[in-house]
């Protein structure tokens, strides 16, 4: 077959760039949600109350070990029946990926927090510092910086998971490519370009994260 | 390693020696660990090498075992070049095949034992004879059990290394190296990683080997009493060179050079 450059330039690229905007929207909205929710999950998981600690652990485990795609269907099709409110594809995508990655990030935070020596907690107790304050001004400032590169890697993973949102019709990169492919039967140009777009952005970002790793050191990744 | 003529004087093997270093130099980045080192070892000789840590004495053994290469000079083992081979009358850097044929002459025992943790003691000893020398299982196991007897671990054949004490592991490691029947055995600080109460059992095995075999033994050690007792000759190694050498009597009772005196004073004090 011959690669149609004209078509690639006139049709594929503009459509994919439209898709890219949507993809980045999801990525930029979902990740902060994951960052905050992940931290909350981590802290709940270390709660002194077992009836908080145990359920939270299982919820994290459940979210982590079920497919984001099925979670997407659940939120898109089942949740509206439960709450009587229809969510847009964008909101569904942000919520599902945000929650899914919160479960991953809670593991990352945990690794960072476990790396803070016990003596730091003990010293805080000895100084009679309140638990909330210990978290905020003693433990987290030591636990977070070393895990920054790992967080960066998950951000890239989240970006690479956004094509899943094709399943609920969100017009992200892959959906755009698929629509073009189907209407003009130019799958090769459309999907290859979509792949290249992901490759360039993901690889470029990973170089940035590796630079951060060299600067700040690294904590073992969980996934 | 530069090419040079095989017949030039400084490269021709000398039949009197089993190990020779000729003007060997080696450095790691800025630090030079061997400077133009010359060293001869006679067959069946028991040579002890002493000296401050970081002086490069372990490097001599690692170069001989082909774990580190050299930057210039020649190393000759049993009449053949170790790091070079002859190609059309010229000496060229050795390839892996040449190194493998040379390694059959050498065996090494390490400071940290380096036993294979996923194999039993017996399997540690039979592995190389079976896969390298081509012995069948029965022969290899017979050889291994004899060696385990010799090091006093007859009943530990089926234990994994993690179930053995440091001293026991090191004795298995000695048996493992002996199973390959090398002409030259290299001992690299073999008691340095052991708890003090376990040092004796390992030294006893070495003592027995030194007395009962005509194997050439090169022993890098911090155990001065032991060196004095078993060695035919002691080298004091300092700053990448042999600073002083002689019989144990001479080195330990009347060392000539200041550095040697200072070193011996420091280590013998405790």
């Amino acid at each position, binding site marked *: 077959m011959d690669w149609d450059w004209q078509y690639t330039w006139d049709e594929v690229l503009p459509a994919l760039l439209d898709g890219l905007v949507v993809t980045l929207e999801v990525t930029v909205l979902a990740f902060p949600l994951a960052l905050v929710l992940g931290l909350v999950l981590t802290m709940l998981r270390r709660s002194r109350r077992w009836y908080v600690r145990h359920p939270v652990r299982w919820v994290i485990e*459940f979210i982590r070990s079920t*497919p984001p795609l099925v979670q997407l*269907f659940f939120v898109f099709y*089942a949740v509206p029946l439960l709450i009587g409110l229809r969510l847009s594809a964008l909101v569904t995508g942000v919520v599902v990926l945000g929650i899914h990655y919160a479960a991953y990030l809670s593991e990352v935070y945990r690794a960072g927090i476990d790396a803070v020596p016990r003596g730091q907690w003990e010293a805080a107790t000895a100084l009679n510092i309140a638990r909330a304050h210990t978290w905020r001004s003693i433990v987290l400032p030591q636990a977070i910086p070393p895990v920054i590169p790992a967080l960066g890697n998950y951000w890239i993973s989240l970006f690479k998971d956004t094509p899943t949102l094709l*399943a609920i019709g969100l017009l992200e990169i892959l959906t755009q490519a698929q629509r073009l492919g189907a209407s003009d039967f130019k799958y*090769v140009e459309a999907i290859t370009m979509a792949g290249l777009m992901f490759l360039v952005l993901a690889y470029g970002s990973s170089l940035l994260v590796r630079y951060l790793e060299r600067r700040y050191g690294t904590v073992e990744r969980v996934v | 390693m530069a090419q040079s003529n095989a017949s030039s004087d400084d490269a021709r093997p000398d039949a009197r020696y089993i190990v020779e270093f000729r003007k060997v130099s080696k450095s790691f980045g800025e630090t030079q660990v061997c400077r133009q080192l010359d060293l001869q070892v006679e067959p069946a000789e028991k040579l002890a090498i002493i000296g401050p840590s970081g002086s490069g004495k372990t490097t001599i053994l690692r170069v001989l*075992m082909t774990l580190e290469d050299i930057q210039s000079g020649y190393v000759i083992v049993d009449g053949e070049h170790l790091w070079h081979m002859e190609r059309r009358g010229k000496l060229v850097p050795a390839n892996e095949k040449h190194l493998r044929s040379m390694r059959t002459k050498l065996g090494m025992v*390490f400071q940290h034992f380096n036993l294979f*943790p996923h194999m039993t003691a017996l399997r540690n000893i039979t592995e190389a004879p079976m896969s390298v020398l081509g012995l069948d299982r029965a022969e290899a196991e017979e050889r291994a059990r004899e060696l385990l007897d010799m090091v006093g671990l007859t009943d530990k054949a089926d234990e994994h290394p993690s179930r053995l004490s440091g001293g026991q592991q090191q004795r298995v490691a000695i048996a493992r190296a002996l199973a390959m029947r090398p002409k030259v055995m290299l001992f690299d600080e073999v008691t340095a990683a052991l708890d003090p109460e376990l040092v004796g059992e390992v030294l006893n095995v070495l003592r027995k080997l030194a007395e009962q075999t005509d194997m050439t033994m090169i022993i890098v050690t911090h155990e001065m009493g032991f060196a004095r007792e078993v060695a035919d000759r002691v080298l004091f190694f300092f700053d990448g060179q042999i600073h002083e050498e002689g019989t144990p009597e001479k080195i330990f009772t009347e060392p000539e050079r200041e550095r040697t005196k200072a070193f011996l004073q420091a280590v013998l004090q405790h």
Partner: protein
Amino acid sequence: MSVFTDNIDTFLDGAWVTIQVTVLSALLGGVFAVLAGIGMLSRRRLVRTVSRVYMEVFRGVSALVLMFWMVFSLPLLLDIRLSAFTGAVLALALNIGAYEAEIVRAGVQAVPKGQWEAATALNLSATQRLRRVILPQAVAIMIPPWGTMTIHLLKASALVSLVQVADLTARANLIRVPQPESTVALYTGLLVIYFVLAQLIAALFNWLERRATVGRA
């Protein structure tokens, strides 16, 4: 819950496809991973470069995009027929293999240097060193992260439903359309099934880990 009992055959068929997809791409991906992981440690520059490029490319391209490319583009490009099932398995294998290659490399490098040296001192050949001394120890190190990746693969296997492979997820979607009232039960049940399968994989790898470290500290 009658939606499950009414459609039990459909679910079993779908589960069987999900298991096939997961197992086949796990095995094939394992082969890619070992080749590329050891390749990255090769003395030959070309082998190292090829392995690294494989790893970067197939990690960089999103799994689903790769799958679409395999199923929709590749057949056009090469003018061949490739079933959606084959294309999907190939895509998942290439993707997971690229991640696992890094596990292989790290596992091999985690074996202490003294083990290589002892194997060299005993005059084992390069292949024997790797096969008999290093890999058995590296595998023990690799098992836990490999288990995590396999669960990841199970989750990613649901993506095959988007290229018309009739796995569990695809069958559930098919049932939803004529029976919208069962949507909540259907997807809840589906999540639970995946959760149980993931726990089985976790148990399998725990067992493997115990076996691989038997007799050791």
